[in-house]
């Protein structure tokens, strides 16, 4: 029975993400897990996904296996349709050519605002400091639909993030537009190790759409520090398929640097 197959949280997030990609669309890919999501998706589901990286690789067909630390290296940018630079990469997203963006996050709030800068204390004297925006702010600002991949740990889902590194819906409906951000953009999906969230059309608040098969909505929601909305029908997400796991473990990440053990 496939459900008895063991898989890691990360493997599930990646598989979920890969299934959500749309063929023949463009995606601005952030560092780390999003890279692997795009690779798995391109391999199994969306051959005509156009990946774009902030360091100027447009449409690469990355060489597998994925080697950690080669963002920008020959394997990662292999067979791109264009090699360019960062200002051009962000021009593509700013002028509307990027359908999706995919980012990680340390912390997220009900409006999909992302913190990847610091936790606890103040900006000047934080308790924990992360790398900051990188290009995440641009991705979350410019792309039509931003997807966020985040571990389903309660402390990561907070009523108010310590710092808005990359904008979600800010304080609610209309706030992005009032801030001057491009119209009709914003967070689209939050992909966790237990569930999938969207955002309510009207309130722009995070809404539980689906849970990993075997979990209940209550189990998923209880550990979050804010209560998300719950869809009328919460669907079930199948665990990683044998195919997904084989490609992930054998072709993409055989040394399990990203997917873990």
């Amino acid at each position, binding site marked *: 029975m496939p459900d008895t197959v063991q898989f890691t949280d990360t493997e599930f997030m990646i598989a979920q993400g890969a299934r959500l990609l749309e063929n023949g669309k463009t995606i601005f890919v952030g560092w780390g897990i999003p890279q692997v999501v795009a690779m798995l998706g391109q391999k199994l589901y969306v051959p005509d996904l156009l990946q774009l990286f902030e360091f100027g690789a447009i449409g690469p067909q990355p060489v597998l296996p994925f080697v950690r630390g080669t963002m920008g290296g020959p394997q990662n*940018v292999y067979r791109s349709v264009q090699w360019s*630079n960062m200002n051009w990469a962000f021009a593509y997203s700013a002028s509307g050519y990027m359908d999706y963006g995919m980012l990680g996050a340390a912390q997220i709030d009900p409006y999909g605002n992302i913190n990847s800068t*610091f936790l606890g204390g103040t900006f000047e004297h934080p308790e924990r400091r992360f*790398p*900051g925006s990188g290009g995440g702010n641009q991705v979350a600002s*410019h792309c039509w639909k931003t997807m966020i991949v985040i571990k389903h740990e309660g402390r990561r889902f907070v009523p108010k993030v310590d710092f808005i590194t990359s904008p979600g819906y800010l304080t609610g409906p209309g706030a992005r537009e009032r801030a001057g951000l491009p119209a009709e953009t914003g967070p689209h999906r939050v992909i966790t190790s237990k569930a999938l969230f969207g955002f309510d059309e009207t309130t722009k608040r995070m809404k539980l759409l689906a849970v990993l098969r075997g979990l209940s909505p209550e189990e998923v929601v209880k550990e979050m520090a804010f209560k998300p909305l719950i869809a009328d029908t919460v669907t079930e997400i199948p665990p990683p398929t044998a195919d997904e796991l084989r490609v992930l473990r054998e072709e993409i990440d055989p040394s399990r640097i990203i997917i873990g053990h």
Partner: protein
Amino acid sequence: MTRIRKEGNVEYHFVPPDDFRKFVRDRKERKPLSKILTAREAVMKFVTDGDYIVYDFSSLTRGPQALIREVIRQKKKDLWIGAEFTLHESSLLVGSGCASRIDVGFLGYGNYIGQAVCKGRVKAFEWTNGGLAHRLLAGARGVPFLPTRDLLGSDNLAVSSAKIIEDPFTGSPVCLVPALNPDVFFLHVHQADIYGNARIFGTNLFALEAAMASHRVIVSAEEIVETDEFRKDPMRTTVPYFLVDAVVHTPFGAYPGAMPARYDIDLSHVGRLNDIDSDEKMQTYLQEFIYDVADHEEFLDLKVGARKMKELRFKATIIEGYR
């Protein structure tokens, strides 16, 4: 005065366009003179305590790692780093006491640098990768700022010095980021000539922008080639000679990172960098790999070795696109 809706109010590095222009007029050489220097000479001559520095690409791919090690060896002080897409560089520059301020970008990779911020060892400002790229483009274009439609609505604004104004064409808020004209730009390239014409194969972050926008440009190059190579294929020129102040012939200059189509990343050495999570480990690393060797060539002989270099070259089998 232009009405500003919102603005950050922290220190930022800014050189009025007219001041930068005068520097370019008076102190940048247009004559094709040989600019070949050793890394030691170039860093001694062109990097000064307190300087604002930027570099293209990362410690893992085509970063100017030999030049950064030379900066550390010379114990430069109070540097301000424009850390766009930075990985281990910021850890080393902060851990060695060289850098005291970082414009983030991407703060860096590994366990050390976040702690350094928490301990107040280094002051961070949040411009984002895109913000720094835009700032360098403004610096290159000789304008005081560029407008962007990002940074808006985020908390980066308060800890940078971007400003929000109403766009006079649409009435909507738009973010203005000030031009960035660094003191020094380090660029590691595949090929350069003795005058400073330089080319990269592959993508880059902001190579031409930063070369135009910076007061001093130090190019380190895997190979030195005839000027004719550039004139025969001018579309491949990344940076023309008159932007460049020093050319340092530096084979394996991106080590331990990869130089696409030349040599692969040394993952074991990168592991050493990743493991640094304390000042003790930092000092041990700096001592062993930087202070204890006189220069990059001695580093290659004593700390890398011909066998390892051969192995890394062997692995760099993807050459398509890189020529």
